[in-house]
């Protein structure tokens, strides 16, 4: 039983790999359905006399796009396109949905999908933690959210090798998707600080208060990686790194755009998989 946690990590890894394979198969099977639904949704936003044409045209467009994810993204684009298309003499009154509601909708849909698809991973990790220790499966860290409100940010617990493994792979941060669903976090935004850091920072950088006006996120510009928690630990010791971090967050708050969000996601994912 000396290296039992090693064994469990190996078994857990194997199981996770198996589930990922299943997941990819699932995505392949579901992709035409998702794409079809998105196109239908887009078509519904068009005036009656245009529906026939774009239904056919967009189905044919998606047909020309290679790859399942590419197809889904293209179909998602049609929904946006349909909202932006103005037909004939139609009025300029835009019926666009307020950006705040859009973001929340993306958060809810995204986190629900993620949690469903990652359920196997969650179960495997929870089982490994349970079987190797008496430690709780989830632990909550207090963080400061929108408007200075405190909330519990969830993480996987575990001790010893399991803990190290989860931290090294950032898998311990997966439960934060539940925080996104609960509305404590959004997908992209400055990382939430601990109450101590939140109190300390305005003393060295008064503009920092700005940050509380925004909901913290799962991924932020200043870190572009789910590994931020280690960085927060590191930067508390050095003022300069901290200042740079804060400047970047403030930049994000001012320059926030879909393009910037997309860049952050790409960079974060890249960093998560290929550590520099």
């Amino acid at each position, binding site marked *: 039983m000396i290296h039992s946690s090693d064994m469990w990590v190996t078994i857990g890894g194997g199981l996770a790999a198996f589930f990922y394979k299943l997941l990819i198969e699932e995505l392949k099977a579901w992709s035409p359905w998702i794409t079809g639904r998105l196109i239908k949704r887009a078509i519904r936003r068009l005036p009656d006399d245009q529906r026939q044409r774009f239904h056919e045209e967009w189905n*044919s467009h998606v047909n020309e796009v290679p790859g399942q994810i590419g197809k889904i993204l293209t179909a998602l684009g049609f929904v946006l396109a349909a909202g932006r298309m103005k037909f004939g003499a139609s009025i300029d009154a835009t019926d666009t949905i307020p950006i705040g509601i859009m973001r929340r909708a993306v958060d809810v849909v995204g986190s629900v999908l993620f949690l469903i698809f990652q359920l196997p991973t969650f179960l495997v990790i929870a089982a490994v933690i349970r079987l190797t220790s008496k430690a709780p499966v989830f632990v909550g860290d207090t963080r400061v959210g929108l408007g200075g409100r405190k909330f519990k940010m969830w993480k996987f617990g575990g001790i010893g090798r399991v803990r190290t493994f989860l931290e090294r792979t950032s898998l311990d941060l997966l439960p934060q998707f539940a925080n996104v669903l609960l509305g404590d976090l959004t997908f992209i935004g400055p990382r939430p600080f601990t109450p101590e850091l939140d109190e300390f920072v305005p003393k060295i950088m008064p503009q920092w208060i700005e940050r509380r006006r925004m909901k913290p996120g799962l991924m932020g510009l200043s870190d572009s990686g789910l590994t931020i928690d280690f960085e927060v630990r590191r930067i508390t010791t050095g003022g300069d790194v901290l200042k740079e971090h804060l400047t970047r967050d403030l930049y994000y708050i001012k320059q926030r755009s879909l393009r910037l969000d997309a860049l952050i996601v790409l960079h974060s994912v890249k960093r998560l998989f290929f550590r520099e």
Partner: protein
Amino acid sequence: MAAKEPRLTAPTLKVLGALMSPIQASGAEIGRTTNIPSGTLYPILLRLEDAGWVESEWETADPTELERPRRRLYRITGVGAKKTTAAIREIALPIKELAWQ
């Protein structure tokens, strides 16, 4: 339809540029050559069509024979080609002047 002049944004010029060669292209093809995502592409195509710069039609082949849905093919019109050339010249001119200074 009211031929309102379309605003010549960078993506709009890219779309026009892609259509300047005398071939027809589907939305997917234009998207590929210009690297413009579908969400931006179709509003542009529609605006250009409304203004009469671009026209579109279904491909003539039978979809049951092709075993795929029909594609809608876009082509630049005479007016569109003239306006695009003029617009490009207008943009290129100040750049050339700058180069000589």
